[in-house]
């Protein structure tokens, strides 16, 4: 967290005058669920990257690879898991309802309290 400034030293009205400084605000602490890779292989389609509202999908653009999650900023909304086409395929083929943290998924949403490395 950047050092906090006094009222004379910040823009008026809560205005943000620098573009892209949301990165300085670590919103990852708000998370109740954590996105984690499961057993199903990622096909690097970038759908999750496109939909993530917090720009928290880490990618390697050169090699067109989805690398993982920026947990400093990810708020755990689960949008990546719900738009992932591999997740959709796994769910359809399972023939049963899958919990959101089912290990067979590509992106699983695991409760922070239950998460283990």
């Amino acid at each position: 967290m950047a050092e906090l400034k006094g009222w004379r030293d910040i823009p008026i009205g809560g205005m943000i005058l620098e573009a892209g400084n949301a990165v300085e605000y670590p919103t990852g602490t708000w998370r109740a669920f954590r996105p984690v890779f499961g057993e199903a292989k990622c096909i690097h389609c970038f759908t999750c990257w496109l939909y993530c509202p917090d720009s928290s999908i880490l990618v390697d653009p050169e090699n067109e690879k989805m690398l993982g999650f920026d947990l400093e900023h990810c708020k755990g909304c689960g949008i990546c898991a719900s738009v992932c086409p591999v997740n959709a395929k796994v769910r359809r083929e399972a023939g049963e309802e899958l919990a959101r943290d089912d290990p067979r998924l590509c992106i699983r949403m695991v409760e922070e309290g239950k998460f283990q490395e």
Partner: protein
Amino acid sequence: MSKFEALTGNDAVATAMRQINPDVVAAYPITPQTSTVQKFSEFVADGLVDTEFVTVESEHSAMSACVGASAAGARVMTATSANGLALMWEIVYIAASNRLPIVMSLVNRALSAPINIHCDHSDVMGMRDSGWIILFSENAQEAYDNIIQAVRIAEHPDVLLPVAVCQDGFITSHGMERVEIYEDEDVRAFIGEYRPQWSILDVDHPKTYGPLDFYDYYYEHKRQQVEAMKNAHRVIQEVAEEFNRKFNRNYGLFEAYRLDDAEVAVVVVNSTAGTAKVVVDQLRAEGLKVGLLKPRVFRPFPAKELVDALRHLKAVAVMDRSISFGSMGNAGPLFLELAAAMALHGVHIPMADYVFGLGGRDILPSEIESVYRDMLRAAETGQVERMVTYLSVRE
């Protein structure tokens, strides 16, 4: 050359708006403000202004459109009354907190319920803590002059706050008076061109208005609003001085009428001050030392100056056209704040509040005279009979 026209208060404000030629006006019609925007929409239709006139579906949308346009860097105006202002509520605070110099003509009307379209000050008193600058106008001339000055006050770089200019519903808004209308060029020269410092449309310098602001910075932004209000106290007087020089007027924080050698006085805003002046003259003719203080600036509240203007008196009556229900003595807001200011500045003279005119109830010269006579008695005895009187309500 200026010229004199027979205009209602609403037409006078619409004329000021034509001369100001704002970039955007967003407003919804509500009695008794309606004829302002009706007249202004004629100016738009006739091509006399370049304004983008946004006809919205509610006052909440009107103020929202004003906020968006002002953040985009436009010079923005609106007009409303009573329940319309109440419907704007959420965005009224946002306009002030986002530091957007919007100018509003507020034609004072009683808030529902029961529904009533006539004058009192319950609407504006509800917004007194919202962060807007609030000016009162005795008549159509003052409404016109205040609107012009409001643009300069709001847009001053040390202020950047929205301004509401009040006039009394129907009494002023629909009463036709002789109003001096200045040359268009003179008004435009006075207000100058608006150069917004932080326009959203300045795409080379991207910025965000109204982001999430938590415990770590929200408080600092409120402290900035305090500073802007403090600055407004100075800027309002500077703008008035320049206006007075240019247009030969006499605006300040308040008007003192036969107050210097008075022993008792009434403090009252808007049109009733005009009636009270007649009463002052009548009582003066009887040799009674009575005077009047008419606040023009209510926010920021010029406590010290008001106290200094009143400290020589032997009794002071405040006349409030609204009630702060459940407050000390169920008094009116003007009395409560002025009484606190007097006490905290060490001035202890008998003071009483007279609530009057709710929902457009007429206030007669004889009633104002009774207030003066009460105060003359209080000056003799050193105390008031009642702290709060509900003038002319039937028992």
